[in-house]
């Protein structure tokens, strides 16, 4: 392999792997002896939950890429209807995702995006 190619892989380790992995292993060394009923574990679980749903809401409200070309109220409506379908169909993730996607595609087509 030539120098630049090898450097490309070294960059993955230096600025991709190490700064990312440090959090996973910090958690392993700090929490490896904690029990399921520990308050710290519960706190970690709810912080992770808030973080994930925060990302979800951000992706719907401030969409990027081609999703940004679909009007905001269609994205919001599709997500809300998908969530309602999830609740109605006995907490089925599949029903929720299928309903949300279907409405998003119909709405996106209606708003002028080419399939």
């Amino acid at each position, binding site marked *: 392999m030539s120098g630049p190619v090898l450097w*490309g*892989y070294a*960059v*993955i380790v*230096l*600025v*991709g792997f190490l*700064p*990312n*992995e440090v*959090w*996973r292993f910090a*958690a*392993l060394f700090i*929490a*490896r002896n*904690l029990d*399921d009923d520990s308050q710290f*574990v*519960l*706190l*970690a*679980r*709810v*912080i*992770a*939950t*808030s*973080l*994930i*749903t*925060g*990302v*979800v*809401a*951000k992706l*719907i*409200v401030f*969409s*990027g*890429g*081609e*999703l940004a*070309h679909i009007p905001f109220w269609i*994205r919001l409506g*599709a*997500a809300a209807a*998908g969530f309602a379908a*999830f609740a109605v169909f006995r907490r089925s*993730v*599949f029903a*929720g*995702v299928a309903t*949300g*996607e279907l409405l*998003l595609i119909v709405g*996106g*087509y209606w708003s002028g*995006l*080419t399939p």
Partner: protein
Amino acid sequence: MTALREFPSPSRALLAGMLSAWSSVFFLVLAGTYVGLGALAHDFGFSQWWLATTTVVVWAAPAQILLISALPTGASLFEVALGVTLSAVRLFPMVVALLPLIRRSARSIRDLLLPTHFTSVSMWVESLRLLPGIAPEYRIPFCNGLSLGYMTTAVAFGFVGFHLAAGLPPLLAGALLFLTPMSFLTSTARNCRQLVDVLAFAFGIVLGPLLAWYRVELDLMWTGVIGGLAAYGIHRVREAMS
């Protein structure tokens, strides 16, 4: 209490984990996400093997997007590393909450290294849902199988996206991008077991866009910390009163 799921051997548990990954909704999510990443890597001039390597060793889509889009713009390596590490803070509480489910069957810390590296949102959400129903001695192989199922999917669809590059019609590309929020929304809701989880879920949805709207620095980290602490605080107050 229902009986915990057993397997004939650890390798059968690993296989069951892989099958579970390929039949879950996150198969579609990862396929969609990594088709997008493959196209991005192609457009920015990276090789398909470089992308596949980042998928295996970094194993975090936000960090990979940052690497691919920031490196070619001439950002300093320090800046990129800083961005990656800020995007990865979320992995810390996820690993903390995952470990108690699997650590009892670990003979040594070495058994926990792979699940730790494999921790990602999809694997975490599915592990918290499925592992409590599995006999403790099979949880680590099942969890590794689940992760391998997701990782192979991501690598494979990274190649697909690389070769499709920019050939995606706009509406399909938009629908693929919508898979991530839609599936995380419903699967996170499915995992809400107690009121404290529901509160954290709701606070995150409100705070995420709100802090982003006000351009708060590190908005997602604060969403997690404020939303999680508020949910936990309410939970403790209610417990103290009852």
